[in-house]
């Protein structure tokens, strides 16, 4: 075959292929439309037309689905598009609630006119207008949103239906019933709440007392307290007896119960709080020496550290800080450190700042001493991991403020409980990152060490700990940062330091004073973070 011949043949083949392609695509068009119509069931022409436009990118930016706009969440329920249903329903409920508020303040306004209270009339008429406007605006915007989103969201539903035929398609009356149930559950009570002045918790407690005393209470008041106020209290308990611990001559304590004089029962919350207080008191009465011992150890440690930081004259301490910073983090960070030190000194924060730093260092030391072995245990032992990990998980979800409670409960207020709360708060990253580092040591490396005759101790000290060092140092960095933040919060329970200035300033609304102390804390945090991070990096 000559080359010319082959060329013509090829071009003929091209044309034929193109024709066939066109035919096929025509067929595909029909198939696609058919699929659209099968999906939509009701009003198939409209949806097939719209979906085709969406696929061809020809849908106008202002395209609205009129039936969805008018029908709102009812349309969405019929089509089985539950996301649209909830959007439409919630927006409509917001509009209706505003309408309810409009009604409520119209009634209130009428009452105010009756009572001739001009300022109330003025306030209520301004509120009525605001709520009426809100109701109309929210309703219109809501419907526009539904109308605009309807076809676009419905097309997504179609795509999902193509993949999984169990996705809602077509129209179904059954979904109307489900939607109707949802609406009857939600709407009446919500609207009722918007038209009523809800009674507060105290009013409801009074009502319960009145019922207990056998007085008549109207059904409406009872209904209001049961539904649109605080969740009603179901259990009433007898107030616990009073418990005291009388000191004997030999130093032991005897428990002494005094019957409660309270006439009325209390709710579960009050009852349990008193019981918890009693058990803490009992622990303190019988094991006071243990808590005193811990306090003493903490105070000794802190005193030793404070002797260095607070007791050393400031020029010496500042010089040492600069040297440390220069050695570990280089000249740039040292300039920053110097700036911070000048700030602390110039604004008179030096002693206070050193006190905070002392608490941070004491906490960090305790965290490392306790956290490192714990982390090794967690990293190496399945039991360790099973026991400690859940505790750490809980510890890390508890907000830092809450840690102050047990510290105060057992150790009263002051610096030792402050350190204790700080240690508990800052410990988890030390344990976690140590364990992570130990676990990350490759099995093959450990195997090699064993193959050359390493004992378990040698494996830990020569292989696992060195390889885990970067992770452990990251842990130390975290501990320092978290200790600083907690040491500031611990000022609430009397840990002193810069945090105390902030707390005190808050109490007296002296924003300026608090802000200066806050900046001092931030600067210290940044300096410590930079130095520790650089030190880690240069070590690697």
């Amino acid at each position, binding site marked *: 075959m000559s080359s010319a011949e082959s060329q013509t043949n090829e071009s003929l083949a091209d044309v034929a292929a193109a024709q066939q392609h066109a035919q096929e695509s025509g067929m595909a068009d029909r198939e696609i439309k058919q699929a659209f119509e099968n999906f939509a069931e009701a009003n198939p022409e409209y949806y097939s037309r719209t979906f085709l436009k969406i696929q061809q990118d020809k849908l106008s930016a202002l395209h609205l689905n009129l039936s969805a706009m008018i029908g709102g969440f009812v349309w969405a329920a019929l089509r089985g598009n539950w996301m649209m249903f909830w959007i439409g329903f919630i927006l409509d409920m917001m509009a209706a609630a505003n309408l309810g508020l409009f009604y409520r303040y119209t009634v209130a306004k009428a009452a105010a006119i009756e009572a001739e209270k001009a300022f109330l009339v003025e306030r209520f008429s301004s509120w009525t207008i605001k709520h009426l406007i809100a109701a109309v605006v929210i309703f219109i915007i809501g419907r526009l949103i539904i109308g605009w989103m309807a076809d676009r969201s419905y097309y997504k539903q179609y795509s999902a239906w193509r993949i999984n035929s169990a996705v809602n398609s077509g129209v179904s009356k059954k979904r109307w019933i489900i939607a109707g149930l949802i609406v009857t559950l939600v709407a009446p009570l919500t609207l009722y709440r918007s038209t009523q002045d809800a009674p507060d918790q105290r009013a409801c407690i009074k009502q319960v007392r009145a019922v207990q005393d056998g007085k008549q209470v109207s059904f409406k008041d009872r209904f209001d307290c049961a539904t649109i106020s605080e969740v009603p209290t179901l259990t009433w308990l007898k107030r616990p007896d009073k418990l005291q611990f009388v000191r004997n001559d030999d130093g032991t304590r005897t428990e002494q119960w005094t019957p409660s004089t309270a006439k009325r029962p209390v709710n579960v919350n009050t009852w349990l709080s008193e019981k918890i207080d009693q058990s803490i008191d009992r622990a303190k009465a019988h094991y006071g020496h243990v808590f005193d011992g811990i306090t003493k150890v903490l105070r000794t440690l802190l005193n030793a550290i404070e002797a260095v930081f607070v007791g050393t004259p400031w020029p010496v301490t500042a010089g040492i800080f600069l040297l440390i910073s220069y050695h570990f983090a280089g000249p740039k960070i040292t300039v920053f450190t110097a700036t911070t030190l000048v700030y602390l000194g110039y604004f008179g924060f030096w002693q206070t700042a050193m006190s905070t730093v002392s608490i941070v260092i004491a906490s960090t030391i305790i965290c490392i001493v306790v956290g490192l072995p714990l982390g090794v245990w967690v990293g190496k032992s399945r039991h360790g991991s099973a026991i400690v990990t859940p505790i750490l998980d809980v510890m890390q979800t508890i907000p830092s403020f809450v840690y102050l409670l047990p510290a105060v409960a057992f150790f009263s207020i002051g610096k030792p409980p402050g350190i204790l709360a700080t240690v508990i708060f800052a410990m988890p990253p030390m344990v976690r990152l140590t364990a992570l580092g130990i676990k990350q040591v490759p099995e093959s490396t450990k195997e090699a060490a*064993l193959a050359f005759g390493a*004992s378990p101790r040698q494996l830990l000290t020569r292989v696992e700990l060195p390889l885990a060092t970067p992770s452990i140092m990251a842990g130390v960095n975290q501990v320092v940062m978290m200790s600083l933040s907690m040491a500031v919060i611990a000022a609430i329970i009397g840990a002193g330091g810069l945090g105390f200035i902030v707390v005190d300033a808050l109490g007296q609304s002296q924003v300026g004073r608090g802000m200066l102390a806050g900046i001092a804390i931030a600067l210290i945090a940044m300096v410590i973070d930079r130095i520790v991070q650089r030190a880690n990096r240069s070590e690697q």
Partner: protein
Amino acid sequence: MNSKASATSKPVIQVQDVWKIFGDRAKEALAAIRENNLSKAEVLEKFEAVVGVREVSFDVHESEIFCIMGLSGSGKSTLVRHINRLIEPTHGDILVGGDSVGQLNAKQLRLLRADRIGMVFQNMALLPHRTVRDNIAFALELRNVDTYTRMQLADKVIDTVSLQGYGDRMPSELSGGMQQRVGLARALAADPEILLMDEPFSALDPLIRRGLQDEFLELSKVMGKTTLFITHDLDEAIRMGTRIAIMKDGIIVQIGTPEDIVTAPADDYVADFVKGISRLKLVFAHTVMQPVGEYQQRGGLTDNNEQWPSAHPEADLDSLISLAVDTDQPIAIREDNNLVGVVTKDALLRGIQGES
């Protein structure tokens, strides 16, 4: 260093009926397998246990390079870890220099590992925080050898594996091939009698792999260490091995010299492996030749056989080809000047093809 010589010397490693079954019910599974001869899949289904090594016995002789060849999952790496008891066998015993490894207490075991067995790993497994020299001296350090002696010994091994000048570098600064030299040096540092090599060259690219193979063969000739060499590459096994054991599903299918394996595969599995292997250096004249009597009967022997090119019975096919290309005559195979057989061109071609 040939099979005949090593067969007579005393075995350094004796593996005796070793089984390894992974799983909580290993002992039960073992009893059931021995009784009912269950397959791997049946054991997994009935006992949720995986058979790693199944009824393996072999001896490794002094100065021998014993290759264990098998595909991934065949249990070869598991097997080699039994020798220094990184893995405990479910059943069976391993003797190293006549001592049962299973009987050792923890301290004796550590001594065995530190003094008598060196191991090289596929992924090098060097300690990234130590210099090359400190890595090499690791086994010595674990035995509390003093720093001075340690450094002396390490530097000696650094010379052996041609890593001069790299002692103070970190492993991460070295290429893969160099790192594996460090791995080898580390295994040699304590001068052990046994080397366990778990796919040492598999992770390297082909050229470097070949270079290291040659170097290791040279070293091995000089040092004469008894070596257990694991590989998944039959070419490598044939290049390196004095003897080869082929493993499949935890069982040793065949043990033999490279020539045995290539010329007389034990079953279809081995035959399949051997198919692609070049026979030129592995098959020898005595295998492909027609014995002189047989040749004479067929009337091929002519008087001018004195002028035929001649070769020794131990000459490989490669050298026979070199002789055959220069002449139209058959090749006479002579031992001590006596004609023992003849290799015709037909027989030579068949021999290369492997249909002999």
